């Protein structure tokens, strides 16, 4: 597969997330890009290898296309009239940053479970009684991404 098609598929995945808050299935790729099912599977695997998206282990379902999560998480982001799920604290603000949209984030304190609500309006985040902690040094982030 040529590079252009590969990155067009990546762009389609992101656009699908933005417009539906869900990832496309691999079955949606062949008709749109005039590919065989095997080529679509190969494209998803290649994008996974390049860290452009992440597949659920043993499947061709998209688990993550950062900042978007393909599954429900405790990091809920309301933006553009949709509810998105983020992969982590960082990605919960990554969604309004990527969409260039206002957003309301609903999450919780990892220790107490108390709700944490953040608000982004006109490119500014409202002050909040909360902090974010990154546990793992950057050089290890890609060792086991779902754990991050």
């Amino acid at each position, binding site marked *: 597969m040529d590079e252009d098609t590969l990155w067009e598929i990546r762009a389609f995945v992101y656009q699908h997330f933005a417009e539906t808050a869900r990832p496309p299935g691999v079955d949606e790729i062949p008709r749109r890009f005039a590919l065989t099912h095997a080529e679509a599977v190969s494209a998803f695997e290649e994008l996974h290898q390049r860290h452009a998206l992440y597949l659920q282990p043993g499947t061709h379902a998209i688990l993550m296309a950062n*900042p978007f999560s393909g599954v429900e998480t405790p990091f809920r982001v309301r933006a553009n009239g949709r509810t998105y799920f983020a992969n*982590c*604290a960082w990605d919960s*603000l990554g969604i309004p940053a990527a969409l260039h949209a206002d957003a309301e984030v609903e999450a919780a304190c990892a*220790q107490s479970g108390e709700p944490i609500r953040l608000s982004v309006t006109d490119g500014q985040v409202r002050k909040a009684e909360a902090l974010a*902690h990154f546990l793992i040094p950057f050089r290890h982030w890609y060792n086991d991404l779902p754990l991050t």
Partner: protein
Amino acid sequence: MNMLFFRSEEALDEWLASHKAERGAVFSIQQLWELSQRWYQDRMSPEYHGRTVKQVQEIFKELGLTSTFWQI
């Protein structure tokens, strides 16, 4: 597990103790927003094809993230 929210420094300390974990990098919400904007602002673009190690290092440097935690 890696990137979590806490209500306070005290809550973070309790969590670190209960998980026998060492403190990593801590961000205020404003700092996290600045990092999010810099990291994700171009993510929806069809032209985004990932980043090189050098580009990542540049972003961290711009944001003052220069400790060993951010070294590649």
